């Protein structure tokens, strides 16, 4: 569930960074180029598909969508709150979560 959440959160983070207003929240002094936006958008959707595929192998096709939708709600809420209160932390938390998940999965 941790890895699925990480994938969901990273997916939403990249998708939000493909939108100018959220990109400006995280990097106030940089401009979002449209080629970067397209790339971020593609990458975000790819992560979302990866989250669905990974959770399906883990929980089965019947239960995975239920779990994924719940995690996506949590990811969207946490991201929206972070973007408002601590925008700089949003990408940092993605990195921390990825690192923790990676460490956790290699330990097993």
């Amino acid at each position, binding site marked *: *569930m941790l890895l699925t959440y990480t994938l969901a959160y990273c997916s*939403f983070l990249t998708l*939000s960074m493909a*939108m100018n*207003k*959220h990109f400006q929240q995280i990097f106030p002094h940089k401009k979002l180029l449209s080629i970067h936006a397209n790339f971020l958008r593609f990458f975000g959707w790819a992560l979302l598909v990866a989250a669905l595929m990974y959770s399906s192998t883990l929980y*089965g096709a*019947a*239960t995975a969508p*239920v*779990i994924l*939708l*719940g*995690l*996506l*709600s*949590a990811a*969207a*809420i946490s*991201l*929206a*709150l972070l*973007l*408002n*209160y601590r925008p700089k932390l949003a990408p940092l938390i993605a990195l921390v979560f990825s690192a923790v998940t990676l460490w956790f999965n290699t330990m097993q």
Partner: protein
Amino acid sequence: MKSGFRQSMSWLHTWGGLTLSWILYFVFLTGTLGYFDTEIDRWMKPELSPENANLQQSLITAQQRLQQQAPGAERWFISPPTNRDNPHLRIFWQTPEADGKPGGRGNELLNAATGQPLTARATGGGQTLYRMHYALHYIPANISYWIVGICAMFMLVAIISGVVIHKKIFKDIFTFRSNKGQRSWLDMHNLLSVSALPFHLMITYSGLLFFVLTYMSLIVSDTYGFGEKAHEQFEAEFFSEPHNISVGGNKKELANLSAMAAIAESHWGADQVRYVDIDHPGSQHARVKIGRQLDSPLRASPELVFDGTSGELLTNNAAITSTPKAIYDVFLGLHEGLFANTGLRWLYFFSGLLGTAMIATGMVLWSLKRRPAQLKKVGGPDFGYRLVESLNLGTVVGLPIAIAAYFWANRLLPVDMVNRAQWEAHVMFLVWLACLLCPLLRPVQKGWGELMWIAAVAYAGLPLLNAVTTNRSLLHSIQQNDWIFAGVDFTFFSIALIFSIAAYKVQERTQISPATTNSSKTPNIATQQETA
């Protein structure tokens, strides 16, 4: 009503949403608690320690006890502690009709190791709270189903019209801007609604489906005709329930249940037995059905059917009997989430809270939007406006306080009290009533902060009260690895923390805002001061 599609949808959303929002808030909050009904049950019966017995031992105990208690029964039912929704061994029996008298029923909770019946304080437990979300309280169930059904229909209308009037549903999906007054409330309302939109739609629609046969009974009559017989035929075909034929037959002893359960476990794996259902125990025609744990949203178990006297496996009933039934079962299963493991259960709980908060923010928005105009009125705000404002306060904060009072009553009411379980619920509704009446004594704006502090104290006190009145304090639970008990205590602390933060924020705001709320021309001063 206004012209234009979006405007009229907006009108529908505003007024349709407001009209029944208080009942919907009640339904959503108690329903959300229902995801942890078993855990709450256990917290409210602190006398019962966790059951460790395995399946084999539980079935031996159950069989012995049923033999003693109900030797001539037409049905026995055993729910072993491996079943997540029944953490203790539960037996149930039904005796046949005799001499024109209807058959009796009984059930017991057993200690699986000793076979002694478990006795705990009389309590409504999590089940009473859970039942309230579709059967309400004090109102006959068949009327409540209709009330809740109409509310659910309003909810569905509010969700769909909400999607229509939200212009930037994708662009604003991650948008929340704090300290912008009404704008922030709308942002939060949208965020709560959109981020869990699939859940809100699913829970409302499937909620309606639960009583579809009540709400639209004529659909059945269209195919099957009218009358009791037609209805029975429909039930038999749709739910594929065999007719109860009273089998006479010679007496013959029931074979060993644990041997049959062992066969079931070899089919499904360990800890997969959800129930054991015995038809006509003690007769030569006895049948034993063993059902599997739910592991997907499909709310039906595959069953193994055994010959009760020889213990021989007869048939393997699939969980899916027909496509319409399977679709119905999936919707119901998604709603109840019985298949969910601990992680998914928290996600369900969390999504339910999002729905509850969505309704609450909607209620607040309604009054916030009208506040400046109402305050300008000569002679003060209208009665209708003040009524909504008071009901909002008394429900949004009052109901959580009332639920806390329900838990307090569980620990404080004398154990030997008559009608104790009923009084727990009475205490809850009396406290709610008090909260609803509190705007008569205090100004509503001040009431928000004050009631939130009361809620915070009420929830923070619960783990302490538990530590004083039982021997299962938080510390003890952690030492014993009893994460269900500790989890409930921790959740109470978290709720208290959330309420105290909210109370602090609200009071900070009301201290600044009197100057601004009086003169609606400068509504931005408050926000400017807060950001400064």
